[in-house]
């Protein structure tokens, strides 16, 4: 079974795949216990104001209705903002469900009906009479740009830095430049829409103890949140999320169904499940609408001399949600004169929330479409323009890259895509009555690493158990972590079990930002390494050990044996060690990013996206007929799951450029298409030939695995590549997403 090849780098299928496709995998809303109660949330139907009265009498009188919780009868809870905070909380004052009669946004949860069945709870909810006093509100970013102001810094800006300071004299350099390109870009609100509905099942265990099945991207994040707000010992709060049906950022913060489920379970001392309906998934967190302006200037050789990128984004009235929109262009293009600005407009909406490649997928559209425009102004091929301005170091902060094989992405991507077949003239290529366009764009996403812990145990039977509290949001975390652990101890996959998604396991941060492999993978590797060391020591401690006098560097771990490299006859088996040890052997280890070393480098994954579109000349209908993304993301642990990540990102790129939008009625201050029939994400008929290349990239700095993470990079380059291809096909540059086909009539 065991080959000599390491498991890292093998395209291993998801270990839990069969459970998911057969419906056997259980999600947070599927844990049934006797006596389970069902909560149904009532949401505000006004956008701003106060609840003047809330009458629950009729609802409460219905047989089978247990309680209706509102701001009037909720239990007394934690006082301070900080206690409502979480690992992804922006600076400000976190929203508190059922806190007061104040309404801050449309869809705000204002009551929880708890009943013996879901259907009864839902019906009872329609019997609750609520009267409001309405106040004027603003939800339209475009109408309120005069209110733009700088964001307040906070803990969140550690991972999401505010724009770098201006360099040189942008205005002068831009005015003096040989070629200029500029644009205004608008992106509307988008919602994450994971397939799994948000749900929490809280099981009241007695004596202040809770077991909570939660849809989340961070079990410990939910555990700390619940402990802080409800004044429980952390050890008494166990949060489990074994399977997560998609997150995309929506589970990075504890959502209100968790709060309401726990509150009801504690008050009623019974198990309570709260599942949100699809339309309620539009009442927390979204990608914020953003207006961007760019001005790029270049000399006659195509060298970019001046970069200006400004963004104005929406936030809520209670938190300053920020994302990195404008920091990227100078990381990619080493201009001497830069001006990057990022401002917020607080509106009467819920706080925005990280959504796949937050900021990056927004900013890249403006940057890469402006680059495309500049290429036309200069009459230089778009790839050539990027090579002329290739940043060997990150000039935005003056640091080298830990590794950067973007050039290879351009070369290999262009070759496989057939970029050389492109006639640079817009509207010059066609098939029948379809205009054909080729477009490309660069993608970039920062590679971060956070601290994490992991445990590794060699059981009496010689099996390896590793664990971490991290979730698997469908990305392949279980499989990848199993591969890493197996390689560290030289065991076949079948002998390794990775346990995860449980807050009682060793600490892991929230799962997002493409940092799970580098963060948790490093912790697993460290725990494995520690176990390796321990086993080797025990092997040497055996009486007359064949490995006496050997160093750890001089042995290999293979198939349950520790073998001398110099003389393979000299070996000690795990069984020999375990026989003497009388029990399992266990290590727990913490992996901390090597902050001092890492600080000297900029660390990022890169990509080059290539797209072919067909645009119906008369009808405007756009089809993305071919797309290819070449990715440089360091060591790829599992090419199969990584490819799925990139493909998923590319599909989302098609969605962002051409399909999805949360339609807002600003007069009502609410979202109008809160369902999957009217919120358009791509269907199979929208997807055609798609391909992924991973270029080889060695990175000895970033972490011991040399891996950068691939969760976001797949989406970053696609939307501008599509917009650029549409320009090439039609000669029309549409800077508002999604590009409706009727804008091409």
């Amino acid at each position, binding site marked *: 079974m065991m080959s000599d090849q390491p498991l890292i780098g093998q395209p291993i299928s998801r270990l839990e795949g069969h459970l998911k496709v057969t419906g056997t995998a259980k999600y947070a809303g599927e844990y049934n216990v006797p006596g389970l109660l069902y909560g149904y949330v009532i949401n505000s139907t006004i956008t701003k104001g106060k609840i003047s009265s809330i009458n629950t009498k009729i609802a409460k009188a219905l047989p089978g209705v247990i309680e209706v919780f509102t701001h009037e009868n909720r239990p007394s809870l934690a006082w301070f903002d900080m206690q409502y905070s979480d690992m992804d909380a922006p600076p400000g004052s976190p929203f508190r469900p059922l806190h007061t009669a104040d309404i801050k946004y449309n869809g705000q949860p204002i009551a929880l009906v708890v009943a013996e069945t879901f259907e009864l709870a839902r019906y009872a909810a329609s019997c609750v009479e609520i009267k409001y006093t309405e106040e004027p509100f603003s939800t339209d970013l475009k109408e309120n740009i005069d209110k733009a102001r700088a964001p307040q810094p906070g803990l969140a800006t550690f991972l999401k830095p505010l724009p770098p300071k201006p360099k040189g004299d942008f205005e002068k350099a831009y005015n003096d430049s040989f070629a200029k390109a500029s644009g205004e870009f608008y992106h509307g609100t988008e919602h994450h829409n994971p397939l799994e509905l948000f749900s929490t099942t809280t099981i009241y265990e007695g004596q202040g103890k809770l077991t909570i099945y939660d849809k989340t991207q961070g079990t410990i994040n939910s555990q700390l949140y619940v402990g802080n707000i409800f004044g429980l010992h952390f050890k008494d709060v166990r949060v489990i999320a074994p399977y997560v049906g998609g997150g995309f950022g929506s589970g990075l913060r504890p959502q209100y169904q968790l709060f309401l489920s726990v509150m009801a379970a504690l008050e009623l001392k019974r198990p309570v499940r709260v599942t949100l309906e699809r339309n309620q998934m539009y009442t927390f967190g979204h990608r914020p609408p953003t207006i961007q302006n760019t001005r790029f200037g270049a000399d006659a050789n195509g060298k970019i001399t001046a970069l200006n990128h400004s963004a104005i984004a929406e936030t809520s009235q209670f938190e300053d949600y920020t994302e990195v929109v404008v920091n990227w262009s100078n990381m990619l293009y080493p201009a001497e004169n830069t001006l990057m600005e990022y401002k917020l407009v607080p509106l009467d909406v819920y706080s925005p929330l990280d959504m796949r490649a937050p900021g990056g997928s927004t900013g890249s559209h403006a940057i890469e479409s402006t680059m495309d425009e500049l290429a036309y102004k200069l009459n230089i091929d778009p790839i050539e323009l990027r090579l002329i301005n290739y940043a060997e170091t990150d000039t935005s902060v003056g640091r080298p890259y830990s590794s950067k094989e973007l050039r290879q992405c351009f070369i290999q991507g262009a070759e496989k895509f057939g970029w050389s077949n492109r006639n640079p003239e817009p509207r010059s290529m066609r098939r*029948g009555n379809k205009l054909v366009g080729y477009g490309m764009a660069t993608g970039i996403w920062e590679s971060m690493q956070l601290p994490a812990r992991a445990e590794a145990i060699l059981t009496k039977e010689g099996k390896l158990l590793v664990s971490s509290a991290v979730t698997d949001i469908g990305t392949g975390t279980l499989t990848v972590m199993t591969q890493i652990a197996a390689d560290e101890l030289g065991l076949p996959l079948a002998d390794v079990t990775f346990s995860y998604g449980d807050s009682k396991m060793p600490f892991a941060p929230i799962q997002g930002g493409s940092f799970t492999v580098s963060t948790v993978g490093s912790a697993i590797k460290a725990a494995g390494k520690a176990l390796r060391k321990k086993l080797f020591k025990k092997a040497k401690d055996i009486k007359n050990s064949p490995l006496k006098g050997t160093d750890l560097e001089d042995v290999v771990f293979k198939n349950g044996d520790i073998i001398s490299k110099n003389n393979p006859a000299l070996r000690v088996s795990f069984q020999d060690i375990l026989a003497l040890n009388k029990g399992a052997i266990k290590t727990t280890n913490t992996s901390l990013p090597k902050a001092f070393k890492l600080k000297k480098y900029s660390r990022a994954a890169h990509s080059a996206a290539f797209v072919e579109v067909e645009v119906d000349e008369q*009808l405007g209908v756009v089809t993305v007929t071919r797309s290819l993304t070449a990715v440089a993301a360091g060591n790829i642990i599992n090419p199969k799951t990584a490819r799925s990540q990139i493909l998923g990102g590319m599909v989302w790129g098609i969605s962002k450029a051409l399909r999805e939008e949360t339609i807002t*009625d600003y007069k*009502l201050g*609410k979202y*109008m298409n809160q369902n999957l029939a009217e919120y358009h994400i791509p*269907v199979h008929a929208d997807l055609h030939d798609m391909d992924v290349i991973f270029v080889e990239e060695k990175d000895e700095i970033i972490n011991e695995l040399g891996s950068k993470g691939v969760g976001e990079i797949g989406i970053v380059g696609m939307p501008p590549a599509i917009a650029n291809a549409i320009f090439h096909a039609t000669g029309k540059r549409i800077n508002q997403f999604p590009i409706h086909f009727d804008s091409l009539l």
Partner: protein
Amino acid sequence: MNNFNYTKAQNVEEAISLIRATEGSQFVAGGTNLIDLLKYNITQVDALVDVNHIAGYHTIEENQENGLRLGALVTNADTAYHPLIEERYPVLSKAILAGASAQIRNMATNGGNLLQRTRCYYFYDVHTPCNKREPGSGCSAIKGYNRIMAIMGTSESCIAVFPSDMCVALAALDAVVHISGPEGERSLAFADFHRLPGDTPYLDNNLEYGEIITSIDLPAKGFSTNYSYLKLRDRSSYAFALVSVATGLELEGDLIKVARIALGGLAHKPWRVKEAEDFLRDKTPTVENFAVAADIILQGAKVYQYNSFKVELAKRAIIRNGIMALHPESQLPGAQPSA
């Protein structure tokens, strides 16, 4: 969703008497739209009368006028894939398959397809004014986000669009709707079945309370040689039409003898304009002639803030679909429109 009674009717007479026994009750067949409306609390019923088990309406058969009779309880999927429909009324097959999803078409019935409600965002949001849902409360769409709304036959009280694809083809085919009711049986020409909103937008059609659709007759003329259905929408499948066109042509030599052009996505009912079809008679099927017909059809269009594109889009769609009808073999399932 409120509690309601549920009964199964064994025959049409029983179904009608059950409906009349409880005021505020409704028939349910496939339920693909009605169940959503109940769950969203847009529609409240005191009783549902399940008509799925009524015998005699689950078949597609020849009628006495050399056409076909579609049982009201035949599913949309079974209709679309029925050999006689594919052979003699391919535009109907194509229109059905352009709508909804495979799963929904497997459940949805022919009778129910005629009775689906609009997909107007405001109709579906019970917390916004809507004259169709709550008469007299006002229309949120007229000054709201009206990209998907109507441009033909609108009124001050409603600009909603009827969403069916199947009905666009049925309109083009001059289908006849057979109805049973407390007063006996009657028939309505397809053009007379659906209503314009006027000042009664809560009435989608001319069915009286207690009446039930039993079958739909297709006349002999099926346009199986020259036909096309073109649907333009915000994604390639599972999205409602912004504009759709069903075209059937009967050619004699180089000349059009009969032209049928019905449009979806433009109005509160499938849209046909007799003058445009008359204009095309004895004309050659050219871009220029279809363009004139398109201009005639779109005369009197009234646009709103976000849907003015529909006028030009509809015109281009009419022209393209006319040309496509000359080459129906180019219309593979799911294919994008071609030359």
